[in-house]
């Protein structure tokens, strides 16, 4: 039973690719089917979470029943299922938005197949227990994301995809170099097995090289400063529903990678890495914050903001205390919801602008006719800035708290100061779009607001009733605290 709970969230979107492609001539059925499949996958993921929670044991499947470490392991440990659930929720919202989108791209026959492929890649990346398999899933994410961006209505989509792809290729190269280094040192690819062997012989000739290259890889994947260059362009140019997924989920693959590195694979050697993550994170918080305040386009602003928010998360991982890890997880989850919602709102406003663009001088004053969107945007912005009663506040509270408790005052001070910048750009953009006047702005229909409304509601809910998410992440963080448990659960 549990086997299927683990397999289906991955298998359904995968099978959805050919199915929706087969239905490419009947767009209505195609899109409905895509949403249906995604909802089904989400349902099974919830079931999976329940299974893992009740048994407090990871669910794992050996593909083809080849026992670990020889076959490929699918693993839903608390962290994995946590991330998978996050992805599926946001992906569902993304599909809902696509159904109501006015962009041409959603009408292309391959849009939904590509979207489901993205879903496959994300779910798989979080649920696989094998290093190389993770690489493959990451590649699925890269190619589907790049394609979806290249075919965007936005004329710059191709450029964005081109830059993203080259930089991702760099990441893939680093990833393979890292995998090779670890394989030659430990002769295995299964994460649990690898972790066990690294623990027993911490310093093989190429261990550190492996760490270095994996670090570089995940720094690119998580678009952390100074490996971020692809991100603002890419997230700004993609079709709105896609950019929402990219900025909220895709960068989390890197975050996930660092969580695995610091808590599972290199639990012993991770001190340097953790320090590095704090430094990089702080840099990202500053750079992203100021970039967001300085850029000329709402979507870009939100992309830069992702850079900053990832910074917060990396700092949390770097501090590495149970509380800070839990904080990082809560932050990860909440940011996914918020950022998706905000990008959707930005896109929705762009779709209502005189010419379809998200740049400020176009969308300024467009909010005049859309007060509801304004309320959503203000709430989302508050969440982003960590203002109660929205979920962003919980994230900020926990990060700050863990900083206080682990006595990391320097970093804490900087990110504290930087987080006022968030408030600045959020409020400024709100003022520009909803308060300033623009003669060109006309009453105009655009993308539907259902999806962002749902996400904002969820953010509000998770702010007011934060207990479930917080305890969930503490549970996951507790598991991260003891890699032996994970290893034992897989190699049993």
């Amino acid at each position, binding site marked *: 039973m549990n086997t299927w709970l683990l397999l289906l969230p991955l298998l359904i979107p995968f099978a959805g690719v050919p199915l929706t492609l087969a239905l490419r001539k009947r767009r209505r059925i195609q899109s409905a089917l895509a949403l249906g499949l995604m909802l089904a996958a989400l349902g099974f993921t919830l079931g999976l979470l329940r299974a893992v929670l009740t048994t407090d044991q990871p669910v794992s499947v050996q593909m083809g029943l080849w026992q670990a470490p020889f076959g490929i392991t699918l693993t839903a440990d608390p962290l994995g299922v946590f991330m998978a659930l996050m992805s599926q929720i946001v992906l569902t919202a993304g599909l809902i938005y696509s159904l109501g989108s006015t962009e041409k791209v959603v009408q292309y026959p391959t849009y939904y197949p590509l979207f489901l492929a993205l879903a496959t890649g994300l779910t798989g990346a979080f649920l696989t227990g094998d290093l190389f398999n993770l690489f493959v899933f990451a590649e699925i994410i890269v190619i589907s994301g790049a394609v979806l961006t290249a075919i965007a209505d936005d004329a710059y989509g191709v*450029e964005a995809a081109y830059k993203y792809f080259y930089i991702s290729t760099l990441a893939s190269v680093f990833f393979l170099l890292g995998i090779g280094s670890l394989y030659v040192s430990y002769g295995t690819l299964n994460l649990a097995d690898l972790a066990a062997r690294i623990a027993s012989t911490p310093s093989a000739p190429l261990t550190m090289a492996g760490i270095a290259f994996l670090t570089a890889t995940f720094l690119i994947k998580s678009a952390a400063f100074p490996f971020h260059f692809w991100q603002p362009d890419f997230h700004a140019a993609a079709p709105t529903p896609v950019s929402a997924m990219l900025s909220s989920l895709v960068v989390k693959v890197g975050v996930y990678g660092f969580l695995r590195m610091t808590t599972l694979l290199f639990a012993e050697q991770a001190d340097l890495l953790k320090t590095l993550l704090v430094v990089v994170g702080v840099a990202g918080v500053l750079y992203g914050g100021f970039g967001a305040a300085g850029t000329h386009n709402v979507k870009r602003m939100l992309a830069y903001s992702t850079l900053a928010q990832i910074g917060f998360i990396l700092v949390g991982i770097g501090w590495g205390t149970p509380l800070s890890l839990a904080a990082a997880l809560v932050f990860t989850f909440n940011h996914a919801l918020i950022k998706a919602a905000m990008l959707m709102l930005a896109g929705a406003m762009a779709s209502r602008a005189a010419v379809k663009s998200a740049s400020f001088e176009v969308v300024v004053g467009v909010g005049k006719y859309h007060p509801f969107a304004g309320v959503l945007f203000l709430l989302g912005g508050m969440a982003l800035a960590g203002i109660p009663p929205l979920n962003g506040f919980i994230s900020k509270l926990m990060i700050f708290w863990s900083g206080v408790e682990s006595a990391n005052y320097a970093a804490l001070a900087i990110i504290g100061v930087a987080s006022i910048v968030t408030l600045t750009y959020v409020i400024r953009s709100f003022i520009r779009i909803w308060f300033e006047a623009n003669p060109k702005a006309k009453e105009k229909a655009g993308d539907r607001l259902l999806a962002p409304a749902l996400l904002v509601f969820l953010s509000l809910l998770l702010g007011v009733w934060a207990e479930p998410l917080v305890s969930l992440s503490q549970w996951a963080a507790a598991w991260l605290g003891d890699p032996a448990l994970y290893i034992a659960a897989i190699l049993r």
Partner: protein
Amino acid sequence: MNLLTSLAIGTLFAAGIYQILRRNVIRAAIGLVLLSNAVNLFLFSAGAYNGAAAAYSNAAGQISDPLPQALVLTAIVISMGGFAFVLSLLYVISTRYKTSDSDEVKGLKN
């Protein structure tokens, strides 16, 4: 031999990087191919001691490590697909930006 092999891999990698850094996008694309070749060769050298026999179950004597070979197969296919996609991007860029100079492809900035 090891030294020569590793130097060859390094040279291939360097050539790839150098090409990727060319302004002519076609050269940069060629760089992608060279890079993936270099990485694949590296994966080979990450395999356990390369034996005298191909990795077939009926082979006599020490066989070469099959796992990296399988990984390389996957990596080749993946990078092949990506490479083709990049080429299509380059074509569109050349029509949209009327250039094949990667330095002139900077509509997205700040």
